């Protein structure tokens, strides 16, 4: 499937793909990308990763409880669903957010520009109020849903230009 994405969405998708491929051995597909999308289920497990500098904002990941158990089974190596605690799932999601944020910010910067990430916060159910959402991508990862968002006005200018093409090698039409 062709996807013509902004630089921001392209960098986010590439960071998620690489991370999930490495951590869960799953292929990632975009279901929907729209910052207004009202996506997700209640009781989602979430992780918020602050991006401190040079651009200030947040990366947010949300997954369903079922998704959390499946990923934890692969990442942590626990097959029995009862062995996987909510704490484990939140810790794993925080680590995924940390890794994705690093790849995402690095892709937006020159190699000689340093950057800094903050410490993650995690939870289940309602999330704290965040800064303005700049983008929101809904993903299918091995049959499970994940939503990834970027908040913070500093990232707005990366959302303007549609230039990245992913999921095949054709150019933007």
């Amino acid at each position: 499937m062709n996807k013509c994405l902004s630089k921001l969405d392209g960098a986010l998708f590439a960071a998620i793909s690489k991370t999930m491929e490495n951590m869960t051995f799953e292929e990632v597909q975009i279901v929907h990308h729209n910052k207004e999308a009202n996506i997700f289920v209640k009781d989602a497990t979430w992780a918020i990763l602050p991006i401190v500098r040079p651009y200030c904002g947040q990366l947010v990941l949300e997954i369903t409880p079922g998704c959390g158990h499946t990923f934890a089974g692969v990442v942590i190596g626990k097959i029995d669903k009862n062995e996987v605690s909510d704490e484990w799932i939140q810790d794993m999601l925080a680590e995924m957010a940390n890794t994705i944020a690093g790849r995402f910010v690095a892709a937006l910067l020159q190699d000689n520009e340093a950057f800094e990430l903050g410490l993650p916060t995690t939870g289940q159910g309602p999330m704290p109020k965040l800064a303005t959402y700049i983008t929101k991508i809904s993903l299918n990862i091995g049959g499970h849903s994940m939503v990834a968002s970027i908040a913070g006005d500093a990232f707005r200018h990366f959302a303007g230009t549609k230039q990245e093409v992913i999921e095949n090698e054709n150019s933007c039409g």
Partner: protein
Amino acid sequence: MIEKVVIADDSSTARMIIRRCLEIAGCIDVDFLEAEDGVQALHFVREDDVDLLVTDLNMPNMDGRLLLKRVKGSPKLTNIPIIIITSASNEAIREELIKQGAHAVVTKPVSPASVAKALEDLMDEKQWG
């Protein structure tokens, strides 16, 4: 010979992945000490005869940068090799950390191959048997 390794990361998931990668990379029969932050890691390296410190950068209480500075600034600890495993990595950050005394910088997500490469470089440098 690596016999005792400190793994410092605030994420238990990350510590487990790093440990698994180290084992696959050849660290078998190794005593792993897991630290949740730089303070605990520093305590371990001060109290135990540690052969290798593998640390994240972004941690509460004492981050990996300060831990690196403390270890490399101590005449007693300065010879302990340090591998930094971090998600916040590019060429600028890598260069800065190597300049501060880190032996290798591995970008997350870690893989057995990337950890093995860092260990291999370290072995060559230190001539461990």
